[in-house]
């Protein structure tokens, strides 16, 4: 089995059109449009409860009730199912990590490559060596149970596990949540490095400052709607963004 030819740099990887999601009568997302192109980091910032996590969950198919269109690498599945999206090359690092706590770090990583293995790519050991190079801490802990790791290590394991699938698009949900500032900086360094190695990312963050520093393009999501969008540099200078998300002092950035 040979992989599909890689798309050229101008191709859109992900096009989200008119995405609406409701929980019962409450609409959590309202006609959202998002685009990610190859090799880019696109970030979605916004306050708590704006619908950022809901958006990621419905893009990968964890939430069944939605309307709108999600086009991923030119394919528009009729029914968005997680397994199908993972097979197409999408990986989500969820907000609460969703690790396999009673299993070892190594087994968690191995399972990250489950879909690749099923599709006939048997290169999980090489990928794992590569992941251990990115996160040497995980190698030290490889026999330990995931539940015994510290917060930062758990986040590293969650990102490493997602990378085991060699995703064509990585969805990151609040990677800095609940982590000490030093660890946050480390995680964002890794995100910047991943971009250099060609991984496209859709990054959802409350830490707007750090997110805008690594991202190429940004959206501001407020109460389920896209309130602003533009290049990350543009938005970082926008007075409304500075006032609402970056703080007037401008020195809250890590």
């Amino acid at each position, binding site marked *: 089995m040979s992989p599909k030819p890689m798309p050229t740099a101008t191709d859109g990887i992900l096009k989200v059109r008119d995405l609406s999601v409701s929980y019962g009568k409450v609409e959590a997302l309202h006609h959202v449009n998002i685009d990610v192109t190859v090799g880019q980091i696109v970030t979605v910032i916004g306050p708590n409860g704006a619908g950022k996590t809901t958006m990621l969950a419905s893009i*990968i198919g*964890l939430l069944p009730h939605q309307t709108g269109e999600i086009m991923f690498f030119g394919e528009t599945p*009729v*029914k968005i199912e*997680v*397994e199908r999206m*993972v*097979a197409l090359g999408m*990986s*989500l690092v*969820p907000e*609460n*990590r*969703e*690790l*396999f*706590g*009673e*299993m070892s770090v190594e*087994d968690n990583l*191995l*399972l*990250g490559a*489950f*879909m690749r*293995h*099923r599709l006939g790519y048997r290169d999980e050991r090489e990928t794992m060596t590569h992941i251990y190079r990115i996160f040497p801490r995980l190698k030290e802990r490889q026999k330990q149970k995931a*539940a015994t790791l510290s917060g930062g290590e758990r986040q590293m394991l969650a990102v490493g*596990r*997602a990378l085991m*699938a060699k995703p064509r698009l990585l969805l990151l949900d609040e990677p800095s949540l609940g982590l000490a500032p030093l660890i946050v900086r480390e995680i964002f360094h890794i995100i910047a490095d991943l971009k250099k190695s060609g991984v496209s990312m859709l990054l959802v963050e409350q830490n707007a400052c750090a997110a805008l520093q690594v991202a190429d393009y940004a959206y501001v999501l407020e109460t389920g709607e896209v309130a602003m969008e533009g290049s990350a540099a543009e938005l970082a200078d926008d007075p409304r963004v500075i006032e609402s998300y970056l703080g007037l002092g401008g020195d809250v950035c890590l």
Partner: protein
Amino acid sequence: MDMQIALLLGQDGITNGAIYALLALALVLVFAVTRVIFIPQGEFVTLGALTLANLQAGKTPGTIWLLLGAGAAIAVIDCTISLRTGTIRRIPRILLWSVAYPCGTALLLFLVNPAELPMLAQVVLSLMLIMPLGPMIYRLAFQPVAEASVLVLLIVSVAVHLTLVGLGLLFFGAEGSRTLAFSDATFKFGSILMSGQTVLVLASSALLIAALFWFFERTLYGKALRATAINRTGARLMGISTVMAGRLSFLLAAMIGALSGILIAPIATIYYDTGFLIGLKGFVGAIVGGLASYPVAAAGALLVGLLEAYSSFWASAFKEVLVFTLIIPVLMWRSLTTHHVEQDE
């Protein structure tokens, strides 16, 4: 009671306990992966024993009709779904497993005279007839309600149990059967005489448990099942589909059940409804392990076997009562010593 009798009873208890242990492991597996309390586990024991008995008697086991019928139902449902959702590429695969495989097996039964086959081939044929029923039952009865509460799943489970017992009566009649002994050998350990059959049951159970351990600890699919049991959402995000995990666990449960039936068929007469009671004893063992721990469940099942053997000596009229009463102190002890924790992240 002298030493001789005590040892004899112990041997009996451990033999039965080994079978209960296998069933307990299957119950824990199915519950952990799908949250189904699998009451029909024992029916697979019946199917295993009686299918093999039918094959040895040169009759066509009714199991084949169940296989053909379930397959046809799945073919109709899944093909309709495929046509409706525009996933026509799935159809050949659906037809292969739900129509071609059962028809092929039926043809095989028609072409060979199973009574003349060597015993091992008869066992393999029985497994070929029974094992696919596990995933098929999952597809028909549990997959449509997979996200329902444990209670709903339990009710469906009871319905499946009653259906299978009824079908068992239809297929095999009310008379019990035994199969031919696998071996006539006897072994002497000091003053204890062990029949070859007992040794075979113990060795096979030990081997099967070791194989299951290897499967869960060493293979990617085994790890995927454990992952689904630990964190469903996490597993789905790895591309481990809940449906696939469910079918795989039901396949293993069917295999374990059928093999248990085949193992005990030469030492116990099996009726169409015997499996239920055997399954329940496995369930008591699984409860000792809190439906969560494999080793404790296996140990609990051995305890059930021993308790049953010794109580049949002292109070044979109460032997079932004593075994099932065991569940009360176990539940009390468990509810007093363990604290219910909300699922952590």
